[in-house]
């Protein structure tokens, strides 16, 4: 069934078998549990969550480096399989978090950026060189860097190389996995501005994974909040930031420390213990830390309530808000 979405996840799950010592029984770690998402053309969909929420695993499944345990991943409406792998790699590319490990230290910048073109045999060496030069110019890298090595570049420059590599096949979607978290503040804004411009110029859509909510609020058109493998709230960025519904989303937003002298540090009542993904809490995974937990939260998994503002998975919203 063809849909309009560029990228769609339908009830995707992924679990791992974890061995807890030589003699203990093997346990199952459910990193992603029944996630459904849609990325429409032109979206900047931000995937927000903290460590252990499953966003890294989700990204790996989107990039095809990890198969889902169950569920479907659809690209351009059709399910992923071995035959259209080449087409998928052309359509979807990624920029990773660590500019120091995402570039092969023994290869030149030119070699790194041209790799996708050579793998997909797009053009002769002269044409490839021309494309690489053009893209390097587009991302703000001086042409002399073509023969340089990653250790000669700064963190921001390396991230530009990573972006250039992602763009060279003219993808429709770029998955940005914390692309600025490892950079200095003054360089972060350079790269964010670059991403904003590239999106406008090249008509890209982004799946933006980040823990930095200020950046997300600045960039995203849609947001999905993950907690312990599930999406607990999703919808338009503006709506979610102005009016967060899920208690976890509210706590997350309250934790964002904007430069506001005199406001002090908020007291977020979330409790000190972090949940163990190997033994997730019963009912709603968030209930042990939730300031608004009710008796049923411990027993029953919360329903997914979808309305025109978005989706939220919480017992508090069982009755539709009119």
């Amino acid at each position, binding site marked *: 069934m063809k849909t309009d979405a560029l990228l769609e996840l339908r009830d995707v799950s992924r679990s791992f078998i974890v061995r807890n010592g030589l003699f203990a029984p093997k346990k199952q770690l459910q990193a992603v549990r029944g996630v459904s998402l849609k990325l429409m053309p032109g979206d900047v969909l931000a995937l927000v969550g903290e460590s252990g929420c499953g966003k890294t695993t989700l990204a790996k499944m989107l990039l095809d480096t990890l198969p889902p345990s169950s569920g479907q991943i659809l690209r351009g409406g059709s399910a992923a399989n071995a035959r259209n792998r080449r087409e998928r790699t052309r359509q979807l590319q990624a920029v990773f978090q660590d500019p120091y490990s995402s570039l092969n230290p023994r290869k030149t910048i030119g070699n790194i950026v041209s790799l996708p073109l050579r793998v997909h045999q797009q053009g002769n060496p002269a044409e490839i060189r021309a494309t690489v030069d053009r893209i390097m110019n587009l991302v703000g890298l001086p042409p002399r860097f073509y023969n340089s090595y990653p250790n000669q570049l700064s963190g921001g*420059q390396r991230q530009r190389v990573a972006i250039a590599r992602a763009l060279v096949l003219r993808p429709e979607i770029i998955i940005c996995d914390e692309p600025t978290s490892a950079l200095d503040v*003054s360089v972060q804004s350079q790269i964010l501005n670059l991403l904003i411009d590239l999106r406008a110029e090249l008509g890209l859509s982004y799946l933006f994974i980040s823990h930095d909510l*200020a950046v997300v609020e*600045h960039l995203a058109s849609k947001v999905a909040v993950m907690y312990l493998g599930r999406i607990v709230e999703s919808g338009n960025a503006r709506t979610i930031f102005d009016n967060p519904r899920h208690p976890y989303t509210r706590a997350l937003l309250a*934790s964002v420390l*904007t430069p506001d002298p*005199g406001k002090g540090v908020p007291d*977020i009542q979330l409790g*000190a213990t972090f949940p163990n993904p190997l033994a997730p809490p019963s009912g709603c995974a968030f209930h042990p830390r939730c300031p608004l937990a009710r008796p049923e939260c411990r027993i029953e998994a919360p329903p997914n309530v979808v309305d025109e503002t978005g989706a939220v998975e919480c017992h508090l919203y069982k009755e539709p808000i009119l």
Partner: protein
Amino acid sequence: MSVEPFVQVESLNIEFATARGTIKAVRDVSFSVEQGKTLCIVGESGSGKSITSLGLMGLLPPTAKRNATRLRVGGTDLLSLDRRAMADVRGSRMAMIFQEPMTSLNPSLTIGEQMAEMLTRHRGSSRKQALEKAAFWLEKVGIPAATNRLRQYPHHLSGGLRQRVMIAMMLMCEPEFIIADEPTTALDVSIQAQILFLLSSLQRELGMTMIFITHDLGVVSRIADHVAVMYGGQLVELAPTADLFARPQHPYTRGLINCIPIPGKTKPGAHLGSIPGSIPSLAGKLQGCAFAPRCDFATANCRTDTLALRETGSDRAVRCLYPIKPNASPDIALEGTQ
């Protein structure tokens, strides 16, 4: 008679001898902190902020050379202390919290053993007393089931919990002075907020003087009484927090503030302010202002003159030939926020 500031640092210089020559990591840094107050040292990588604190605590590696005209904490002249005396002061009167709690905690000792050691060594408590106090402090930092935790090893705990343990360990000796070097940077956002809340309330409760090192201006605005901005090994601006954010005087400070997306203020989807270029190298000959290559207002003098930190108002100082005047329009040559 005014009371001497609790922390006094004057003309601190720290150099490292490396294969590629001498690296001047910290150049002529001076600041002071009043008792019970918090100073935030803000900077990006290469600014020298961490090295400054290590220099203050006497924790520099042997390849480093430190000199200063004045280095006093709580009335004690740190320059006159030898390594052993310094270690004693560190354990009993000063505390330091680092970024990576896993490497600061000994993985082969239980939490209880490590915490108890702090007290038996520096306060001469008995082991039983020490363990009781340890359990008390674990509860105080919000760790549930404290007595059980004492028997656990660091790898049993999550990052946030380990950092709480670090804080408990450091504060157990009730130090007068605490240096926290990016203690929450490696933690999740919600945990960060909780740890900061804990730290600032404990600081107020115990009346400790704190130096907090970070790159996060948001954190700075919420917990600092005063801010010291560092760039390329130099201290470029010193100001009370509200003043710094309302009227930054150094072009770097202003550039940095403009770089951050501020929900509610910066227009979503628009360009953020940015500072072109990258962090300078600290090797080789260093002349003039470290920020000059990236500064929109730099002149030839900026690159050659030796600049001194000049006082520009009550409690304010800036190291710049052309500091920004209070009435200047906020949008000069920097990409706008509105």
